[in-house]
């Protein structure tokens, strides 16, 4: 019976002080911070980052047979987004990649699919946007999580759950709209609380548990008021209710439940039970138990939720936030906008563009981008592909370009030398232009460089290694 064998959350580098909204608009905002996907991130790129963390923490040799991607804010419709995740994680072409998109609730299908058999991964990701000054802007958050399911080395096993479905109008958004709309807040509370009570009752009965036996309880949903009410209404111990991180990263919508589960698993003890209650167009309850394997997992784990939050910057300017989300159109530099990436070369080089594979010749020289002809020997097609996405590098030299086109100028570009060979020129991201220096250590990050003609240009940038090292 499959269970969770690894997981990883991704919390973006930037956070916005809610008070910055209040200062600028005279209203809105509030206390604490919310996480913000950078100008070069979207739900797909953040899912890739979460997936890289989850796979790095997974048991040796783990490879998913399918990936399931769920978000309420997909980068593309018509075109599958999960295929970009699949490509960026360099998964074999035999592995499936599917979107289960459109609503927060769709994550349940992704998790059910991934948890059904064998080794599969579920990805959840969201970029929550609200109109300036509104509650969704202040209380939303951006994050992603990836959950690896498998048959061996299970760190967390589900032992039941329940689902109640209901059709009612609480929150909605037409395709193309930037922000969603919500019915009167008290109505959502009225609708959700009895649904959650019923679902939780059924889940407890099925598992032969009483509500107060759970060690950790996660209540998740975009309706914050309803989530708080449900936590009090389902009979669980108040101290078991997990911090939903909303004061630090905000409510990350489709990603919230799994990010919170990652955070709980980061500190849960073997044998402890976890109840996950998701309020989204009904209520889904998922009951989980941590296994002894969790300790072995933790020994090799990197990038816990708490570690990532500790390595963020919380001083993003509100004007930058508005610019990044498209609410503030700023004067561009007097430079041409970039061309959209072309489909045929992107297909021909998708191992490079998405998988970040270079080519290594017989002398060990690594060519980035991959080359058919060896620089040193001139040999043709005597190369083997080498994936560089997870290799760390050192800045050989760098510059700050104040003229180049960017949604977030200035562009910081660097020449980086990879550990063990390979040089590459690329953009730096999540970096302070005034602090970068020769010799700094960097790691690669999958990003959306820009969007032109509706085409998202995904590629890799380097960023200072999060948390030092």
């Amino acid at each position: 019976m499959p269970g969770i064998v690894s997981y990883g959350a991704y919390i973006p580098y930037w956070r916005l002080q809610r008070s910055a909204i209040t200062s600028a608009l005279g209203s809105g905002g509030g206390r604490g911070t919310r996480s913000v996907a950078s100008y070069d991130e979207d739900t797909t790129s953040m899912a890739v980052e979460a997936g890289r963390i989850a796979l790095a923490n997974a048991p040796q040799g783990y490879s998913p047979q399918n990936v399931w991607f769920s978000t309420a804010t997909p980068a593309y419709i018509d075109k599958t987004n999960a295929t970009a995740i699949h490509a960026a994680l360099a998964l074999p072409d035999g592995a499936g990649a599917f979107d289960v998109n459109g609503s927060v609730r769709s994550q349940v299908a992704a998790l059910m699919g991934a948890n059904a058999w064998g080794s599969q991964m579920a990805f959840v990701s969201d970029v929550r946007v609200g109109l300036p000054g509104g509650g969704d802007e202040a209380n939303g958050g951006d994050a992603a999580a990836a959950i690896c399911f498998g048959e061996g080395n299970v760190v967390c096993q589900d032992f039941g759950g329940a689902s109640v479905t209901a059709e009612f109008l609480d929150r909605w958004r037409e395709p193309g709209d930037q922000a969603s709309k919500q019915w009167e807040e008290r109505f959502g509370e009225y609708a959700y609380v009895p649904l959650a009570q019923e679902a939780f009752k059924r889940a407890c009965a099925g598992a032969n548990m009483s509500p107060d036996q759970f060690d950790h309880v996660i209540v998740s949903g975009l309706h914050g008021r309803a989530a708080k009410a449900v936590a009090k209404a389902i009979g669980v111990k108040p101290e078991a209710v997990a911090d939903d991180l909303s004061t630090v990263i905000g409510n990350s919508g489709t990603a919230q439940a799994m990010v919170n589960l990652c955070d709980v698993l980061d500190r849960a003890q073997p044998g402890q039970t976890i109840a996950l209650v998701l309020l989204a167009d009904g209520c889904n309850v998922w009951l989980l138990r941590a296994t002894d394997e969790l300790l072995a997992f933790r020994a090799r784990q990197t990038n816990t939720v708490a570690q990532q939050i500790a390595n963020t910057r919380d001083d993003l300017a509100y004007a930058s936030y508005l610019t990044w989300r498209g609410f503030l159109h700023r004067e561009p530099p007097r430079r041409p906008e970039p061309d959209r990436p072309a489909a045929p070369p992107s297909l021909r080089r998708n191992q490079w563009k998405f998988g970040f594979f270079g080519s290594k010749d017989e002398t060990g020289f690594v060519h980035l981008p991959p080359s058919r002809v060896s620089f040193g020997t001139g040999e043709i097609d005597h190369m083997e592909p080498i994936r560089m996405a997870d290799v760390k590098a050192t800045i050989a030299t760098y510059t700050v370009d104040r003229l180049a086109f960017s949604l977030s100028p200035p562009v910081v570009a660097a020449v980086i030398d990879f550990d063990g060979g390979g040089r590459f020129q690329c953009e730096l991201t999540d970096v302070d232009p005034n602090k970068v220096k020769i010799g700094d250590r960097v790691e690669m990050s999958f990003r959306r460089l820009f969007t032109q003609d509706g085409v998202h240009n995904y590629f890799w940038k380097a960023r200072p290694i999060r948390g030092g090292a």
Partner: protein
Amino acid sequence: MASHGIRDKVAIIGMGCTNFGEHWDKSADDMLVESSSAALQNAGLKLDDVDAFWLGTMGSGLSGLTLSRPLKIQHKPVTHVENFCATGSEAFRNACYAVASGAYDVVMAIGVEKLKDSGYSGLVVASPADDGSALTVTAPASFSFLAPAYANKYGVDPAELKDVLTRIAWKNHRNGALNPRAQFKKEVSKETIACSPIIAGQLGIFDCSGVSDGSAAAIIVRAEDAHKYTKNPLYVKALSFVAGPADGPIDPSYDYTSFDEVVHSAVDAYKQAGITNPRAELAMAEVHDCFTPTELVLMEDLGFSERGYGWKDVLDGTFDLDGELPVNPDGGLKSFGHPIGASGLRMLFECWTQLRGEAGPRQIASIGQGKTKALTHNLGGAPGACVSFVSVVGSELD
């Protein structure tokens, strides 16, 4: 590698060069008409006397029609060449070979660029469709890699290096102030240069060459025919052009303090011209000062300074108009801007003017005292991935 050169086989017998600047009132066609007419008049020829044409332009037109249409050239070979920022020099090089081969008697090399119609700052280059993975930084950013690398390698204090770069810009503007064809015809104080707004890395706006429109042209014949047209021809001593393997961005051993391509083309050109000590033998050099650190590094790559000592020579005034080896006596790209297809021929025009003693207030003294050779240098691309051109011309047959 065989590189035999065509020393003293061909000669320049006439040149023309437009004023460089923001020519809102002139098209590329207008500038081609002006520079070609001036060159023909200078050589005492008519358009019909020219057998073939080589046109250098990177973005102001495609094909030979870009020249034949405005000049109404009647069914003659017109070759369009492009080689990044060395485009003008490349037109000249290929035109010289055509004469040396015996295929033609009289040819024209002409370069033009109309940059100021784009509406953008800096250069705009159309690229083929690609996968979107290439780093897209501006030219000042890619050349700004040089300065910190140089300071780091040779232990030059960053503040002192800033003085060196400032002095290069100051010197070139000082020369340009004496040149009526320059885009910027005035001296700029070191303080203004040093305090100019930062564009990329450590480069301020005065560390960058300007953006301008311009055109220049040369008429080339066999050396033995030169005196039919002029008393004072210039003989082509060396033409070298190399494209590097673009290894800088992929090879960790490249350290951003040199252009290997320039070193290779300089060695080749000196061999062709029989030059063993360029600093002593050359009367002047026109080099590709697209950004101030480029000129600094070029002093070493072209063999004018010892490795690691170029910055001292700059501070000592070695390359000033009255220095040991004047560099960019016409004001360089700093004063002229850089209309791509025209720049290489504009450099040659200064050699033409100086070696014939026609440079007026900026005439180099050593040319009247026995020095007869001048060098031009272009590079295109970026540190670690570029093309380089070096020519040597002289007023005497060896």
